[in-house]
């Protein structure tokens, strides 16, 4: 009898607990409110939850002691500097291509900055919002130099191509080979390291992904000089940070953290001269370093949010030089140059 009562009691407990859960769950919803729930949660947690790659030199890569660096990482650092006042207050979540969107929509991370291509279906269909472009890329092919292939026009039917699953690469590859009437063998791996290992071992004749990725992965190969990235670009791959749909304020914070870095470069504001720029004659510059206007108020941030980004993370040019140019991945900026210098980096004005 006593057992009987005990089991009854535990049942009552279970039911109470599930009632509580429902109450919590309903709190979790609530879109469209003026205040940013993500910002409030981030402040409460004390760090920005940032989804990055599992290791792509120049974009997001961890060193031996676990410090993450790269231009994708810098976006998250900028968000942390703007919202929490310290660019180091970021928690990184290494994600595979397959996991990344689910991690974001389920709330495991709040910013996805993981060399992710902005496409219509991703933006519109699956609860994501792209906030901008931090790297203009395109898909290319890598081959072994001794194969004698110098152009994709020399590809012949029966070629085997290694790539990652769950990427736009898989789709572009099919479009490309179909349009040329070439039959091919797609070998798709889950992790980039496995793709590189398989290609390096001769399983595939060519390795295809974004050109920046090819350049970065080449540095991991046994003999980087034995490989050649072919000149053709077969697709547009605008890579940029992504946020969940439904928190417009958070979306704006991430968008303008990135824009601030690019705009700062345009106006010549760097991490070292940012403080002195407060006395600039140019109102646009003064706004960016927080000496004029009330730009932060719109997001619920203080007025020095952009100054902190520039001081702690640097402008886009500094970030690119440090992570991509100086590491030898892509010394030339190409399209990722400011519009004023012949590139296509053009952001709306911060005013």
């Amino acid at each position, binding site marked *: 009898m006593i057992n009987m009562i005990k089991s009854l009691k535990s049942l009552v407990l279970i039911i109470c607990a599930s009632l509580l859960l429902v109450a919590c769950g309903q709190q979790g919803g609530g*879109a469209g409110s003026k205040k940013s729930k993500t910002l409030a949660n981030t402040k409460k947690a004390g760090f920005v939850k940032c989804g990055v790659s599992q290791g792509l030199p120049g974009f997001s890569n961890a060193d031996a002691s676990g410090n993450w660096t790269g231009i994708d990482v810098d976006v998250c650092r900028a968000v942390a500097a703007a919202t929490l006042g310290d660019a180091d207050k970021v928690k990184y979540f290494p994600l595979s291509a397959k996991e990344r969107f689910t991690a974001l*929509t389920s709330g495991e991370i709040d910013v996805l900055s993981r060399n992710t291509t902005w496409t219509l279906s991703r933006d519109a269909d699956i609860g994501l919002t792209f906030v901008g472009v931090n790297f203009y890329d395109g898909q290319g092919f890598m081959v072994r130099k001794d*194969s004698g*292939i110098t152009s994709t026009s020399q590809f012949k039917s029966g070629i085997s191509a290694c790539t990652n699953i769950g990427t736009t690469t*898989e*789709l572009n590859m*099919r479009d490309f080979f179909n349009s040329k009437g070439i039959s091919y063998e*797609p070998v798709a791996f889950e992790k980039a390291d496995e793709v590189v290992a398989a290609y390096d071992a001769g399983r595939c004749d060519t390795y295809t992904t974004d050109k920046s990725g090819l350049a970065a992965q080449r540095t991991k190969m046994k003999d980087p000089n034995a490989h050649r990235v072919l000149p053709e670009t077969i697709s547009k791959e605008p890579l940029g940070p992504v946020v969940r749909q439904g928190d417009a304020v958070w979306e704006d914070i991430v968008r303008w953290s990135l824009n601030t870095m690019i705009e700062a470069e345009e106006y010549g504001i760097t991490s070292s001269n940012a403080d002195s720029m407060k006395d600039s004659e140019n109102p646009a510059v003064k706004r960016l370093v927080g000496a004029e206007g009330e730009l932060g108020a719109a997001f619920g941030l203080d007025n020095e949010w952009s100054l902190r980004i520039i001081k702690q993370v640097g402008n886009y040019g500094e970030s690119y030089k440090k992570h991509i140019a100086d590491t030898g991945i892509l010394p030339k900026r190409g399209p990722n140059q400011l519009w004023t210098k012949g590139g296509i980096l053009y952001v709306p004005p911060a005013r």
Partner: protein
Amino acid sequence: MDIKKFNFGINNYLEDRPKLKKFLPQGLTLLAIIFILGYFTYNAQVNMGNRGIVFGFGFLSQESSFDIQFSLIDYDGSYSYGRAYLVGLLNTILVSVIGIVFATLLGVVVGVSRLSSNFLVSKFAETYVEIFRNIPLLLQIFFWYFAALRALPLPQDAINLFDVTYLTVKGWFVPRFLWTNFSILIGSLILAIVAIISISIFAKKRQETTGERIPAFLISLGIIIILPLLTFLFGGVKLDFEYPELIQQSPTIFNFSGGVGIIPELIALALALSLYTATFIAECVRAGIMGVGKGQKEAAASIGLTPGQTLRLVVMPQALRIIIPPTTNQYLNLTKNSSLAAAIAYPDLVLVFAGTAMMQTGRAIEIVSITMLTYLTLSILISIFMNWYNKKIAIKEK
């Protein structure tokens, strides 16, 4: 209120109603389960609604627009996601069937070998079991794919077996069979099988009634060889081969074309799954044989059965009853473990459907539920078959 009194109140109330007392806890538990499931569904719906995600299976008929490396049915990117699912499912079944067949053969041999009186044989079997069952399966898959198969040569230096099959890092290339009048051959095979079954029934009856033994095995062997051979001679059945040929694509890139290419991913996965699972099956077999009483063997010997007959007629029928249930578990494990294929690019259900298709459509909840249901169905089918077989060989009380 006095809780003790209240409790006794309930007790007395239930004590008077034994039926209610029996069903109340079960009913409450069921309610709680339904409630929790309902909560999860509701929560998922609310959250998906907030993020603008629509639930639905309409995507299955959309064009997939990605290619798959290896498929048993016609497929390319112009087919639907539903078709891609089927491709992945068939690939999963293929590697599971191959794995189960080889794991069983190897497992039985090793299991019997462990009981061998030959020191070398039994120690060898023991060492194999201890090594392969104690290394995580994923590592073994990586080993066979990245270490062992990677040591194979490029196509131009292929390991050449009799000029018909070639083993390379890009796969194992074997001749393709080109049949003429294949249906006649299949017909003759069916005829042969029917004949063999009737002969064995006849032989059994004959032995039971007269004690006379008919060499049914030899006759059957003859039928299954001679009947199809006759169709080659008189039935117009012809077999031609299409051999793989080396073609040059660039100064250093060579590939085989023609024939059938068995991709190294399939070889590595099937190898790893069979070698790993065989160790567990071997232990099941050993347990089964050891579980048959010693007296059974001695009794069989005393009525003049040969060691072969003892094993076939006395030991194995009893051992199988011990072997089958745990071996069913191993078959289920093997099938589920085949999902590790994603690590080495073998296009199974998880890689193709819960991988690429999920990423291209973003339908995580739909695709993961379909995939889970599929594995559940596969496992249940295997269980049903094995339970049927187990019942069939169970002791029939007469």
